[in-house]
């Protein structure tokens, strides 16, 4: 694989990001410019920016990788990522904009007049932001390693440095231009190669992924096993190996009988065309017949119906609680524009998500060797090169790589701005606004970078799913009840945030730190939304009811402000 084109492409994206960011410096001067682009961004520019910010590594790489490995059930990820915006539109968009708050903690404090709720919200913003930043940086490392063979830490570090340079120099204004540009770059980076890929696929007689009962290599391919790996073989297969197989040094053909086999780190396996692909244990749905069917299996447990519903709940309700999503709504001039922008975002996301889905389905036919190594997240990066040869293939690969980098940069920038905003306001208030924001940005990026280097690697979309689950279990009840229910009290909000956020975070930490297994325990811990969200709502409602004599005195005024159109507001109010 030629890495020169990829390096040039990544450099171009990085250069354009820094360049557009620098362009914004001249426009941003005050604190309010830094945070929310002075609230003067047009709906289409803002919608593109939201799309650009939202379509992360999980969408660009992760969705296709999950579809390659697990098939039909994984289609719920993009559906959930999109419907999350519909729910946001229905329940949150306009009132939140009208509330006039800059960040989630601002909203919590102005609605409930409580410093404690504010501090708790700040803590959760930082936690969710870091949970979401970590897979972005891991995705960047994976991409750079796949494309150029660079060391594992380099991609994440590169993204961290570029994001810091952009955010620290220009704040949100430059981010808006950068994000809007990156949405369209991501669409182009997936759709253009896809046209070529589909043309080749059609010319080859449109092979179906379910033409064979097990995934079969179409061309002779050599893979290198990066670390010791257990394989599950359903059908005896002969591969050529160079390295260690089942604790024996091998150099030449080796018969893998039905059952489990252990391949040593650094071993090279060559799979001839027509060979059934041995798949990594518990990394995938083995048979194509179950791959294509709904409710056939999920990455971490054996309860697909529960898993599907829990995922649906987490993504539908979690989107509104993602800090980098919410901060975007303050850049709309008024509540009506906030609604229209969100509707545009729905359209932009709907158009985008067909692309990774097609990549994932084609990858089952053309890159099944990724099922062997388990590195399914790189399917999008490899597919164009597999189908389109020569210079054209190299250029298309470079384009996809550039798009992936755009995904990491844009999402990471947005998250960094939100997390840094909260840290600057609530942790470092004595430094002076702009300086505090810059110091906070460094903290916001450095922590998840360190985590991404030490933490165990989850599939990208899976890791992001955990951030959604925490957001759905904490900020969703706070926002929905705060906007629509007069009875919410500070004590109730604290109870809900502690119960929902605490339980979801604990489940996430246990899932990441230990292996809870594939039974019900594993299902409940790795997909916690289905039980954490109802408990959070319950705690918030019961807590508020118990303390119902302590409803904040300004509640009516705050609700009136959130729900009435701006045209009737008096100049003084």
């Amino acid at each position, binding site marked *: 694989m030629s890495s020169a084109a990829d390096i040039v492409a990544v450099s171009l994206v990085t250069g354009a990001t820094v360049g557009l960011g620098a362009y914004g410096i001249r426009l941003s001067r005050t604190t309010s410019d830094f945070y929310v682009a002075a609230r003067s961004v047009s709906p289409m520019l803002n919608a593109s920016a939201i799309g650009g910010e939202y379509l992360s590594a999980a969408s660009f790489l992760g969705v296709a990788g999950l579809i390659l490995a697990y098939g039909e059930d994984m289609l719920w990820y993009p559906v959930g990522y999109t419907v999350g915006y519909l729910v946001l539109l*229905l329940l949150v968009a306009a009132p939140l904009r009208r509330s006039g708050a800059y960040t989630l903690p601002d909203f919590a404090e102005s609605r409930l007049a409580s410093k404690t709720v504010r501090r708790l919200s700040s803590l959760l913003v930082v936690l969710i932001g870091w949970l979401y930043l970590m897979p972005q940086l891991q995705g960047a490392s994976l991409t750079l390693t796949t494309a150029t063979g660079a060391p594992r830490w380099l991609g994440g570090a590169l993204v961290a440095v570029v994001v810091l340079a952009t955010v620290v120099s220009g704040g949100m204004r430059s981010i808006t231009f950068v994000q809007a540009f990156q949405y369209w770059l991501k669409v182009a980076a997936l759709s253009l190669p896809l046209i070529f890929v589909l043309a080749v696929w059609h010319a080859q007689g449109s092979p179906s992924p379910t033409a064979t009962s097990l995934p079969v290599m179409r061309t002779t391919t050599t893979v290198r096993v990066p670390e010791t790996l257990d394989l599950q073989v359903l059908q005896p297969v002969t591969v050529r190996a160079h390295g260690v197989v089942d604790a024996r040094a091998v150099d030449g053909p080796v018969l893998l009988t039905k059952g489990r086999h252990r391949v040593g780190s650094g071993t090279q396996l060559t799979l001839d065309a027509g060979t059934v692909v041995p798949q990594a244990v518990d990394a995938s749905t083995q048979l194509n017949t179950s791959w294509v*069917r709904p409710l056939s299996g999920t990455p971490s447990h054996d309860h697909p119906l529960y898993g599907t519903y829990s995922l649906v709940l987490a993504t539908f309700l979690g989107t509104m609680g993602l800090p980098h999503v919410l901060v975007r709504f303050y850049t709309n001039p008024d509540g009506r524009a906030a*609604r229209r922008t969100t*509707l545009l975002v729905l359209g932009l996301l*709907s158009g985008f998500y067909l692309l990774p889905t097609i990549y994932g389905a084609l990858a089952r036919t053309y890159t099944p060797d990724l099922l062997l190594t388990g590195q399914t997240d790189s399917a999008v990066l490899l597919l164009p090169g597999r189908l389109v040869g020569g210079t054209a293939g190299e250029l298309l690969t470079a384009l996809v790589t550039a798009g992936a980098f755009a995904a990491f940069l844009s999402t990471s920038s947005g998250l960094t701005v939100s997390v840094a905003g909260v840290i600057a306001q609530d942790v470092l208030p004595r430094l002076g606004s702009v300086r505090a924001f810059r110091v906070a940005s460094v903290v916001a990026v450095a922590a998840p970078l360190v985590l991404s280097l030490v933490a165990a690697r989850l599939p990208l979309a899976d890791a992001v799913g955990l951030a959604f689950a925490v957001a759905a279990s904490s900020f969703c009840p706070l926002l929905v009840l705060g906007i629509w229910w007069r009875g919410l009290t500070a004590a109730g909000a604290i109870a809900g945030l502690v119960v929902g956020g605490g339980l979801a975070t604990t489940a996430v930490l246990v899932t990441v730190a230990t292996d809870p297994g594939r039974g019900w325990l594993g299902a409940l811990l790795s997909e916690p939304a289905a039980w954490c969200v109802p408990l959070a709502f319950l705690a918030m409602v019961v807590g508020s009811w118990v303390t119902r004599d302590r409803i904040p005195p300004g509640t009516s005024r705050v609700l*009136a402000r959130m729900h009435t159109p701006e045209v*009737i507001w008096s100049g003084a109010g």
Partner: protein
Amino acid sequence: MTVQPEVPQRRVVVTSARTSAVHRTRGATASREIDEQTALGEVLVRSLMRAQLRIAFYAFAATAVLLGGLPLLFAVAPQLAGIHVLGVPLTWLLLAVAVYPLVCLAGWAYVRAAERNEKDFTDLVDRS
């Protein structure tokens, strides 16, 4: 002869002056009602919130039933996976393609209804 140029001139000045004057007084009164939490202001805001919550609930319920019903449908009718349309399994076509226009449609209908509610509210406030 003197009437002709005077009439349009007067119209221009009077219309703009009258509109802004009317809006200023009505707007100020209405928002004062709401800001000062008078009984009338409170009733107005409560009725607007109920109207907005109702349409949000309809759109949410429709989406939840249609989408949320799919996994259950797939569970009770696994034979659906065997149906192919244009060479693509029906279950894939539903989840990967058909869902998105429906979601956008729900969003569009909601935005229209929400803006209509707000217009009704503004009209009501202007009349009071």
